[in-house]
């Protein structure tokens, strides 16, 4: 087994644990590259189907290409899609910096969906190498009734034994891609032929490396117009993946505050 086989096998194991232990369970589908890989891994784990709903928490500010992609692949992959809205930015904690406030809308939208569907498990496609606080995450990360991430008091997690919910109102965030790196995601996309929204590929010398809301995400300079070219580019790049995501850079702890409050 090479490294991608091992990452794939581990993610399948995690998804099967989640499906067995957490009910009801849903997977977040942000339409980005990581969550497409995650849907693909679920189809591998469950032999061609996704036996739980996928959720799109819609900020209403995604790129039109993303909405088209969502509708096309919901049909092609036979997904059960749950849609949720986000509250207007005026309802969000005004002490957060502006872009983080915008991102926090998604946290609020997600919280509404978790309560609406009484979810015990939410599968999310975050990775450790994206952001330093995500590097401290657990594969199964319990969230209390206020959905807060109790970062000072995470449960032990070792030998593939994961936390299970122990009381009413606790849900578990499941992170099957935690050990994948950005370049692994792209190599797996290449190997498996996983479809992506074409914003990731260069047009007029620019492409998106990470996709968020239109108003707080910027493209990077790049000529990479195929998956293979993106991989080659990533082998030499020195900038971080989320450099184009404004919310990460407004203050030292902006991202941590978002995450503690329930952001992904």
């Amino acid at each position, binding site marked *: *087994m*090479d*490294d*991608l*086989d*091992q*990452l794939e*096998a*581990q993610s*399948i*194991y995690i998804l*099967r*644990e989640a499906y*067995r232990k957490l009910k009801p369970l849903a997977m977040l589908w942000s339409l980005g590259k990581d969550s497409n890989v995650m849907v*693909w891994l679920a*189809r*591998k*784990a*469950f*032999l*061609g*189907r996704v036996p739980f709903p996928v959720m799109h928490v819609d900020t209403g500010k995604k790129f039109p290409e993303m909405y088209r992609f969502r509708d096309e692949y919901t049909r092609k992959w036979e997904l059960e899609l749950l849609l949720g809205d986000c509250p207007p930015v005026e309802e969000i904690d005004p002490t957060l910096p502006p872009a983080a406030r915008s991102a926090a809308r998604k946290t609020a939208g997600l919280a509404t969906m978790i309560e609406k569907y009484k979810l015990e498990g939410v599968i999310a496609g975050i990775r*450790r*190498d994206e952001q*330093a*606080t995500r*590097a*401290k995450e657990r594969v199964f990360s319990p969230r209390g009734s206020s959905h807060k991430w109790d*970062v*000072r008091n*995470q*449960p*032990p*997690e*070792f*030998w*593939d*034994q994961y*936390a*299970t*919910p*122990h*009381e009413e109102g606790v849900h578990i965030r499941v992170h099957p891609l935690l*050990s994948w*790196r950005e370049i692994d995601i792209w*190599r797996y996309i*290449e*190997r*498996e032929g996983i479809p992506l929204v074409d914003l990731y590929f260069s047009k007029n010398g620019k492409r998106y490396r990470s996709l968020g809301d239109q108003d707080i995400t910027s493209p990077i300079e790049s000529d990479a117009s195929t998956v*293979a070219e993106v*991989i*080659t580019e990533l*082998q030499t790049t*020195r*900038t*971080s993946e989320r*450099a184009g995501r404004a919310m990460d850079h407004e203050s*030292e*702890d902006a991202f*941590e505050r978002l995450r503690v409050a329930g952001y992904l």
Partner: protein
Amino acid sequence: MSNDILRQDAATPIVIVGHVDHGKSTLIGRLLHDTDNLPEGRVAQIIESSRKRGLKVEWSFLLDSLQIERDQGVTVDSTRIPFLLGNRQFVIVDAPGHRQFLRNMITGAADAEAAVLVVDAAEGAQEQTRRHAMLLRLIGIRHVIVLMNKVDLLDYDEQKIAASEQAVAALLKQLDIEPSLFIPASAREGDNIASRSPQMAWYKGPTLTEALALVPSPAGRADLPLRLPVQDVYRFDSKRVVAGRIERGRVTVGDTLVIGTHGTTARVASIESWHTAPQISAVAGQSVAITLEPDVIPDRGDLLHRPEEAPIRTARIRSRLFWLRQEPLRVGESFRLRLATAEHQVTVASIDSVVRLDDLTEHASDHVPPEGFAEITLAASESILFDAFTPGTTDGRGVLVDRHQRIVGGAPLIGPADIASGTKAIHPTDSTVSLWDRAQARGHRGGVFWMTGLPGAGKSTIARAAESRLFGQKIDVSVLDGDTLRAGLCADLGFSEADRTENVRRAAAVARILAETGQVVLVALISPRAADRELARQVVGEGFHEIFVDADQATCEARDPKGLYQAARAGRITGFTGIDAPYDTPASPDLHLPTGTGSVGEVADRLAAYVADSVVLAEGTRRRS
């Protein structure tokens, strides 16, 4: 694109451990920086974070990504960061050094291939150095590199450094850890991290990066005997598939496999997959889905293996323990033992030894302290299949979970415990006479009425009186009492907590056998521990009733039918329940029988009525008139 971009070896996880303030985070910052593994802008961020707090460049801020960590200058939780050295992928795991974050240290370290143990050369090994070294042994990390840090404080002096090394080597030797290397280094100055130190021309060994490159890749587990724990069973379309990860060995279509403890066998009919080339064989590490012929239905936790390669099978297990709960562990506590995908109810039958951390020696103790290490015996109500813990495999990786589903300890399983029926091949055969057949023939079901209470509360007396009443109603009934058991079946047992647990387990096992033949069994046993009675309930299963024979201690002591209270008061007996050993009052017994007032006859009538009510079949369902 060239093939080598798509095909790479998996990353090797390396954990950095050591006492708080011996320089782990600084080492990692230095390592990432000197090997060019930091993204652009990260160094500038760190300089800014350091400046804001009035510090020089603080490399630990790279990993201490949480606000609390930077403000308080401590690592709270483990971080894992990918790290590239030449073409080889590593994951560097930064583990917290504070004792209170031990659970986070283990979370980070448990799957590492190798460890770098960082020791302040000037200060030498400290409490967490010993604790971490102990843990490396318990979680099975064999490849250990010792980094003697801060040697600039010893003026890079060869003799002083050698003396400090020897002390650490002696400590590790006690734990059977043979370090692959000692590297004299200064993480802050960069000596012997990614480049050779000009200050220590006398040192001819590898730098840290050279040493990491020499860490062996994980050994393959494909050639070991097959272990496939069932993770789940799906029914998709019309097909039933058994899902699980192959922990070791390989599965090939056509193989005959034994399924769990039942001993049923089935043939592997196919290996199912989606968007993958058809497979006829799969190896360790793969998450597979197989179909079986005949189409038997295994349970989650059943271990699939070849008939001639059976694992250990026992209900009493000797285990090491690293204890993570904030309160001590005591004998008699019950847990769920998670083992791969299986879960078993277990009780701590004895604490065999506890490690004293200041000198790493083993001692007898009646408890395991918070964050302590021990060897214990676990008693289960059913046979457990497992392989002894072996580094480099996933064998014997037990984890203890409390009733709130919290992970409270790691239990590397060593093997069967002494009194166990152990490795003897046992092949129970199911009776062809069903319980229902028996019940109909007799007019009543079997059942176990577990009578617990203080010595002198009247358990045996009432049991005998009720026995004669029930017999008069044509109910097949027998009494198992403590003294009878101890005279024969349990003659080898004393009154230690472990022996009391074993006494209860045997009584429960015999009662179960009798009940399965359709008998009503009245067990009269002090069974002072709630955990032991819970074990009895587990052993017996359906048809277990807890009866609390309740008289206060003064009454019991006044009765003292066997003169035992008098002997205990005189100090001639120790460990006597009610005098110098505790009695856990049943919280919610199925029947509460106060015996302080009323005659023996009245109490026995109540018990007999309760028993008859529980076991006698309604008119019309009986075959016998």
